[in-house]
């Protein structure tokens, strides 16, 4: 059973500020999702390799070649605040 305190914990980790109504709503919705997984876990998977990716392809890689990417001027247009060549962020 997903409770309000679980929602509050997840919201805290995800840095989300939720209203009481939202907490109640998400608790209900998440609970039905988790119940569905409980249903799935009834299946016997003893001889089943865990699936790590829905696609069947593997080993997609690229060569170790540098592509020059100094596009700071372009980039800076999308940075809310800069100082020199740095991104400026609130102090931690």
């Amino acid at each position, binding site marked *: 059973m997903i409770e309000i305190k679980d929602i509050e914990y997840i919201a805290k980790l995800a840095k989300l500020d939720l209203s009481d109504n939202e907490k109640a709503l998400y608790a209900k919705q998440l609970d039905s999702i988790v119940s569905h997984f409980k249903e799935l876990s009834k299946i016997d998977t003893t001889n089943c390799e865990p699936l*790590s*990716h829905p696609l069947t392809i593997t080993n997609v890689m690229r060569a170790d070649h540098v592509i020059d990417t100094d596009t700071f001027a372009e980039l800076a247009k999308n940075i809310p605040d800069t100082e020199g060549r740095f991104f400026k962020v609130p102090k931690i």
Partner: protein
Amino acid sequence: MKNKYEAVIGLEVHAQLKTQTKIFCACSIEFGKPPNSQVCPVCLGLPGALPVLNQEVLVLAVKAGLALNCAIAPLTKFDRKNYFYPDLPKGYQISQFDKPICHDGYLIIDQKKINIKRAHLEEDAGKLVHSGAARLHGSAYSLVDFNRSGTPLLEIVSDPDLNSADEARKYLTELRNILRYIDVCDGNLEEGSFRCDANVSIRPVGSNMLGTRVEIKNMNSFKSVKNAIETEIERQEQELDKGNKIVQETRLYDEATGDTHVMRSKEEANDYRYFPEPDLVPINIAVSFIEDIKKTLPVLPEVLRQKYVSEYQLTYDDAYVITEDKELTGFFETVLKLNVNPKTACNLLLGPCLGYLKENKLAIVQTKLNDNHIKDLVSNLESAQISFTGAKQVLLKAMETGNSISQIINDLGLVQISDEVTLKKFIDELILKYPNQLQEYKAGKTKLRGFFQGELMKATKGKANPQILNKILDESLN
């Protein structure tokens, strides 16, 4: 005083892999470039950008795994480690959770086996700069440079098999040494390409229980690792002696004070909610791929040490010092190929040569010394042309000038006098000069032999071959 407690230490090392580009994008990882000059949508975590694995990362990780005696996973995959921090642009770090690329290895320090639990791949975060100006203005902010974001790291996690700060230092030295030998990581601590965190706990001697462990971060040199661990062991001993409990927490080491202070306690510990990275497909590692990499591995330091001890009769300590330096080992090996007495060559290299290298912060390849210098110097020593003290001077000159050994010996006027007739002349002169002393000697004051010996060394400016000199001196005095 016998210690009541025993320390139990595990180390986590982040080794930066020696690639050209980042782990999931084609940005360069060259150190020291202008801020944010090596960034792209992938390593900045911009929406829609997709990571693609750098194949060299796979090669280097397997190489490291093999050198650390690890099993290599036939199937490996990436996972997201979720947390928020301004140096982490995506809000998660791509790492490996349940299928690390390497696992169950070990390395040997002082004949003791230290197990390596796992080694997994991950991307580095960016770098936060807390500018002094920010504080002056009173406006609280930080600056971020994402050049380092996406740099390939291999996190190597040891089992808690280390029992002292000194063992921890030795483990790190050996690990760094191996990674440098196989050319997987440059091991540069100042530039952050080899970083270490420690898990420290203590328990009563003889107990098998594991105590509550404390994680220590922010140690920037081998010396600070040793210091930080020693300080932490002492702190825990004092807490237990006072009847207090050790709290599970993360502590930061302060280089300036040599102390640690709390960064976060267990209650605040992160819950990373790992899940498989959907943007990257799994990687199968074929046996043939592993075998090919195995063929490229050089002989590892510990194997060389055993060889030097058993075949060349070096002491283990001498063999250790030689193999601590990759370039020096390479040089020593080429010298050995010239059929030079290994023990003498080793004495020359570890004495004057290594001292000079350390003092001038040079690698041996940066000096003008070559293998023939050592060969000639050793043969001059063996034929007693020069003394060992003289050889030291010659060696230093050879490193500086690159001139031939015979030329340097001439220039420095160091040729030993081994000729009996010449030496006899010196002795005859001396006897004429000190007739009284000779009489006293003959009357039984045999201590005066040392007096004659000293005067002779003075007269020959220390160049007399001591063995021949002694022989003729005895003949002349008696």
